[in-house]
C-alpha cells in the first residue's frame, strides 16, 4: 500500500456540499521549534501522533524530546508531559539547565509536567495476570491536569526490563500507542538501539508515522552528532544524515541538504577590494552571493586578498564575518596593517567580526553549526573563511567537501558573498590539492610565487568566474605598503607576458 493509500484509509474521504472531494490535505504537523528540524521535516512532527526517536546511549534523545516539550510550551502554547522511565525529575531539571531551559519554572506555571515512572523488577513479585492500566491512568491524569498537547515517553522500553511478560508488554505498548493517537497528543517516544537494530524491543513496529534516528560517532578524535529521518509517512523528507549540535541554546540541525539549488541569482556586483583585480573581471568584481576560492601555497598573499575584500565590504557599510583558523584577531589586524590595511576601525564599529578558533577545538559538524549560528545571528553580507583547508585537520576530504557544499548553499540562500582561502601544498598542482572544492565555487583564483632567474615573483590568475568573462593572463602583483598592487602587463614581441626583472628589462627596452 502506498503512503497515500494508507492515508486515505485512515481518513475516509469526506465529500463537500457540492459533492466534490476536498483536495488531499498534507499531514498536519506540530512544529518542534528546534532549529533546523522543522525545515527538514517540512513543518515539524506529525500532529496528534507518536514519533519514535531512537539511537544509542548518549546520542541526545532525551534532550531532543525535552526541547520539543519546552519549545511547545513556550513558543506554541502547547503544554507537555514528560514521562521519564529512567531519570528522576531532579535529573531532568539539571539536564534542562544545560540547554538553558528552566524546567522548574515551567512546571510551576503548569506548562510542563515531569512524571517519573519507576519500575523495578526486584521490588515486585509477579503473581498472576496484569496489565498497564496504572500507567495509562497516570499518563491520562497528567495530560488532563495541564491540558497537555505534547507527550514524551523516555524511554518506555524500560518496561521490558521491569516486567517479565514480554508478550504482555508488547500488547500493552500497542494499546498505548493507539490510546495516544486517540488522545490526539503529539508524542515523542524514545528507544535505545544496539547492534544494528533501531530499538532493542522493536518499538519501530508500533510507530508508523515518523521515525528519527540519532547517532553520535567519534571520527578522528572529534565527536560528531547526526540525525536521519528514517521514515515520515505522507511527507517528503531527505533520507540524508544531518549533522546537529547540542549546546546551551538547545539542539540545532543543519537543514542543508533540503536547500537544493533554488537560491536566487544576483546580478549586483561587489568589489574584490583590489582595483586592479576588479579590472580582471569583465563585470569589475564578484557577483553578490558568489563563492570565491583563493588558493595558493604558503605566503602567496591569500589572507591579504581576504583582508582587502573585508575592508572593501566594511567601507560600503556592510558587515563582514571573518572566520580565522590560523591567527587571532589581533594578529590579523597587525599583519594587515603592515600592508596598509587597517581593520581595527571596522572591528570597533562592529562592521567586522573576527571569530578565531583552532579548527581542532570542535568537531567538523560542530564547526559548521557554529558558523551557521554566527551567520544567522549577525546576518553578515560577506563571510571569509581563512583558510578552509584547516578543516581537513578534522575530517576527511569528502566530509570537508560535503560540509562546504552545505555552507555554500546556506550562504547563497542568504545572498552572502563568501571568500575561502585554501592552502596548497608546495610542489603540487593546486588543481590536485584543492579538495575538489573548486567545483563548488563560482570564482577561483590561484596565487603563486614563481621562482625564476633567481627571484620570486608573485602572480595571480583567475581560473574561473561563473557568469562573466575574465582575463586569462597570469598577472604579476606586488605586496606594497598600500597592499596588493597589480603590475601592468608587459608583453614580449611574441605576445608572451613577462614578469619580474624580465618585465623591467623589457620595459626599458621599450616593449609594450
Amino acid at each position, binding site marked *: 500500500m502506498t503512503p497515500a493509500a494508507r492515508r486515505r484509509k485512515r481518513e475516509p474521504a469526506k465529500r463537500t456540499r457540492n459533492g466534490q472531494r476536498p483536495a488531499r490535505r498534507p499531514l498536519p504537523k506540530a512544529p518542534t521549534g528546534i532549529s533546523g528540524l522543522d525545515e527538514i521535516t517540512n513543518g515539524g512532527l506529525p500532529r496528534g501522533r507518536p514519533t519514535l526517536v531512537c539511537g544509542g546511549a548518549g546520542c541526545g534523545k532525551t534532550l531532543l524530546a525535552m526541547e520539543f516539550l519546552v519549545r511547545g510550551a513556550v513558543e506554541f502554547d502547547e503544554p507537555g508531559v514528560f514521562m521519564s522511565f529512567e531519570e528522576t525529575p531532579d535529573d531532568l531539571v539539571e539536564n534542562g539547565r544545560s540547554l538553558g531551559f528552566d524546567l522548574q519554572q515551567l512546571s510551576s506555571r503548569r506548562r510542563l509536567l515531569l*512524571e517519573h*515512572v*519507576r*519500575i523495578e523488577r526486584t*521490588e*515486585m*513479585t*509477579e*503473581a*498472576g*495476570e*496484569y*496489565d*498497564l*492500566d*496504572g*500507567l*495509562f*491512568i*497516570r499518563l*491520562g*491524569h*497528567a495530560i488532563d491536569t495541564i491540558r497537555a498537547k505534547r507527550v514524551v515517553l523516555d524511554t518506555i522500553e524500560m*518496561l521490558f526490563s*521491569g*516486567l517479565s511478560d514480554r508478550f504482555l508488554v508488547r500488547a500493552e505498548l500497542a494499546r498505548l500507542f493507539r490510546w495516544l493517537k486517540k488522545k490526539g497528543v503529539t508524542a515523542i517516544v524514545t528507544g535505545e538501539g544496539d547492534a544494528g537494530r533501531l530499538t532493542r524491543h522493536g518499538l519501530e513496529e508500533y510507530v508508523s508515522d515518523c521515525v528519527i534516528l540519532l547517532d553520535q560517532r567519534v571520527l578522528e578524535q572529534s565527536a560528531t552528532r547526526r540525525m536521519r529521518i528514517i521514515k515520515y509517512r505522507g511527507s517528503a523528507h531527505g533520507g540524508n544524515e544531518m549533522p546537529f549540535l547540542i549546546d546551551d541554546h538547545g539542539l540545532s540541525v543543519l537543514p542543508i541538504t533540503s536547500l537544493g539549488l533554488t537560491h536566487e541569482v544576483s546580478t549586483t556586483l561587489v568589489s574584490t577590494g583590489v582595483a586592479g583585480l576588479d579590472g580582471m573581471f569583465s563585470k569589475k568584481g564578484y557577483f553578490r552571493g558568489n563563492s570565491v576560492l583563493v588558493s595558493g601555497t604558503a605566503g602567496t598573499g591569500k589572507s591579504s586578498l581576504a583582508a582587502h575584500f573585508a575592508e572593501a565590504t566594511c567601507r560600503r557599510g556592510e558587515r563582514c564575518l571573518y572566520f580565522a583558523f590560523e591567527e587571532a584577531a589581533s594578529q590579523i589586524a597587525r599583519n594587515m596593517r603592515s600592508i596598509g590595511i587597517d581593520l581595527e576601525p571596522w572591528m570597533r564599529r562592529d562592521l567586522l567580526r573576527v571569530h578565531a578558533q583552532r579548527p581542532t577545538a570542535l568537531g567538523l559538524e560542530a564547526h559548521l553549526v557554529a558558523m551557521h549560528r554566527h551567520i544567522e545571528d549577525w546576518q553578515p553580507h560577506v563571510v571569509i573563511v581563512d583558510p578552509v583547508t584547516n578543516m581537513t585537520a578534522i575530517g576527511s576530504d569528502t566530509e570537508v567537501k560535503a560540509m562546504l557544499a552545505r555552507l555554500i548553499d546556506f550562504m547563497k540562500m542568504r545572498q552572502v558573498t563568501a571568500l575561502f582561502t585554501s592552502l596548497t601544498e608546495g610542489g603540487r598542482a593546486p588543481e590536485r590539492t584543492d579538495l575538489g572544492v573548486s567545483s563548488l565555487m563560482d570564482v577561483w583564483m590561484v596565487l603563486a610565487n614563481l621562482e625564476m632567474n633567481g627571484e620570486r615573483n608573485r602572480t595571480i590568475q583567475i581560473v574561473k568566474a561563473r557568469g562573466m568573462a575574465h582575463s586569462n593572463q597570469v598577472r604579476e602583483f606586488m605586496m606594497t605598503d598600500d597592499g596588493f598592487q597589480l603590475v601592468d602587463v608587459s608583453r614580449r614581441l611574441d605576445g608572451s607576458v613577462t614578469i619580474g626583472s624580465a618585465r623591467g628589462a623589457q620595459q626599458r627596452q621599450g616593449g609594450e
Partner: protein
Amino acid sequence: MTHGARRTWRLRLYVAGQTPKSITALANLKRLCEDHLAGRYRIEIVDLVKRPQLARRDEIVVIPTLVRQLPPPLRKIIGDLSNQEKVLVGLDMLPARREA
C-alpha cells in the same frame, strides 16, 4: 511465629474499575487472608479510575497491584494473585520454619 504475625496486616489493592482481573484479584486476596490471617487483616481498595492522582503518589504502573503497608517493610505484588504460592512468598505470609 513470623514477625508481625500478631499485628493487624494492612493491605491495599489498587484496581482500575471493575475489570475481571480486579475482581479476581480481590477474591484471591480475601481467600488468602481468611486462610492465613483470619481476624488480623484490613484490605483497602483503591480504584484509580476514581482517584487517578493516587497512581502517581503511590507509584503504581501495573494493575492490579497489591501493597503490604503493614507490617513493614513495604512490599508490592502485581497481578491478579492467582499464583497463591508467589503471593505468600511475596508477602512473607508463610510461617518461617526456622522459628517454628
